[in-house]
C-alpha cells in the first residue's frame, strides 16, 4: 500500500545557486573586498569601460577581474594588458556566469594572489540582458550597462535586468550627436522600472561621466568594506 503524501518545501528554485552565491559573498566579506557584477547585452561596452576604470582606479584600489565569455579569451587579454590579474572563464554554451563558475574563478585567483590584498573584484558577465539577472554570483552590487545605440525602449523590453541593477550606466554617449535616441526617455524608462537605482551617463571613448562613475564605485567600496573596528582598550 502507498500513502499519498505532500511535503512543503518553500525553497527558491535557484536555491542551489543562491547557496553557492552566499558562500562566495562570505569569502568576499572575509577578504574585505567589494564584488561588482557587470552585466549588459553583447557590445554595450563592458570591456572598454573596464579598460578605463582599471587604470583610473588603480591608484587607490587593488583590483582583479573574473572575465566571463562564451568563447575566446579576447576580452581577458585586453584587460590583462592593463596590468590587472584576470581570470578568464569560458562558459561554452551557458549564456551567463553562475555562482559555481565564479567560485571556480576564485580558486584560480587564489593560486595567483592573496584575495585579502584586493579592494575590488570585478565580474564581467557574459553579454546577455536576460539570464544574468536571475543568477547571483555573490556580488555586492549589480551594474547594468545600456548603450545609446541600443535604443531607449530596452529597459521596458528587458525589465528584470534593469530592476535588479543598483546602478545603470548609459554608455557610448559620445555617439549621441549621430543617433535619434532620446536619452531623457531612456533614463525615464530605467527609473520607471527601478526608481531607486543610480543612473550615470558615460563614454569610455571621450571619458565623459567617468569621474561620476568612479566616485560611485569608491563610495560603494567604502560602504561595503568597512575597516575593522578599533580593538577595545581594557583598563
Amino acid at each position, binding site marked *: 500500500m*502507498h*500513502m499519498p503524501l505532500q*511535503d512543503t*518545501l518553500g525553497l527558491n528554485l535557484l536555491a542551489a*545557486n543562491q547557496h553557492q552565491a552566499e558562500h562566495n559573498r562570505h569569502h568576499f566579506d572575509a577578504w574585505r573586498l567589494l564584488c561588482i557584477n557587470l552585466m549588459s547585452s553583447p557590445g554595450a561596452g563592458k570591456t572598454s569601460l573596464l579598460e578605463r576604470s582599471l587604470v583610473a582606479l588603480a591608484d587607490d584600489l587593488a583590483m582583479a577581474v573574473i572575465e566571463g565569455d562564451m568563447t575566446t579569451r579576447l576580452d581577458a587579454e585586453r584587460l590583462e594588458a592593463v596590468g590587472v590579474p584576470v581570470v578568464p572563464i569560458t562558459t561554452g554554451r551557458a549564456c*551567463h556566469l*553562475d555562482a559555481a563558475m565564479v567560485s571556480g574563478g576564485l580558486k584560480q585567483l587564489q593560486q595567483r594572489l592573496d584575495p585579502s590584498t584586493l579592494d575590488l573584484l570585478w565580474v564581467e558577465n557574459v553579454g546577455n540582458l536576460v*539570464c544574468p539577472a536571475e*543568477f547571483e554570483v555573490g556580488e555586492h552590487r549589480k551594474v547594468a550597462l545600456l548603450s545609446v545605440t541600443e535604443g531607449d525602449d530596452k529597459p521596458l523590453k528587458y525589465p528584470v535586468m534593469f*530592476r535588479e541593477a543598483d546602478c545603470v550606466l548609459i554608455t557610448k554617449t559620445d555617439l549621441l550627436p549621430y543617433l535619434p535616441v532620446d536619452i531623457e526617455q531612456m533614463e525615464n524608462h530605467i527609473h520607471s522600472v527601478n526608481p531607486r537605482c543610480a543612473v550615470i551617463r558615460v563614454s569610455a571613448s571621450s571619458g565623459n561621466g567617468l569621474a561620476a562613475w568612479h566616485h560611485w564605485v569608491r563610495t560603494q567600496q567604502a560602504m561595503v568594506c568597512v575597516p575593522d573596528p578599533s580593538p577595545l582598550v581594557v583598563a
Partner: protein
Amino acid sequence: MHEVDMTRCLLLSMHQWKQTHDPAVPAVQRVHLQVGTFTCVEPEQLQTSWRAAVVGSWLAGAELAIETVPLIGRCLECGTTYSPDPDRAYRSPCCDHPMEEIVSGRELRIRSVDYTLTTASAV
C-alpha cells in the same frame, strides 16, 4: 536557454529533499512550482528541460506543475495595487508613479512535492 541551468538547480534541491527520506526513495508524482511573470523564466521551456532531465532518473515520470504568479505592483503614492503594463512603462495607472514596490511576480519557488512511500518505509 537558462531553463536548463534552472532545472539543474531544481534537481539539486530535489536530491537534497530525497536524502531527508533516506534510506527510502520517495516516488514523486508532482513537483509544484510558483513562477512569477516578472522573471526570466519561460514555463514551457522549463517543462521541456525538466522532461528531458528526469528520463531514467529516480524522478522519471514526475510532473512539473507550474503555477504562474502575475506581476502586481503597489503605488506608493496612493497605496493602490495594480497590474504593471509595459505599454505604460510599468507605472501606476492612478498616479503615474514608477514601479517602486512589487507585491508579486518575482516568485521562483519550489512550493511542494506530491509523492508516495510504501507503508513500511513511511513510518
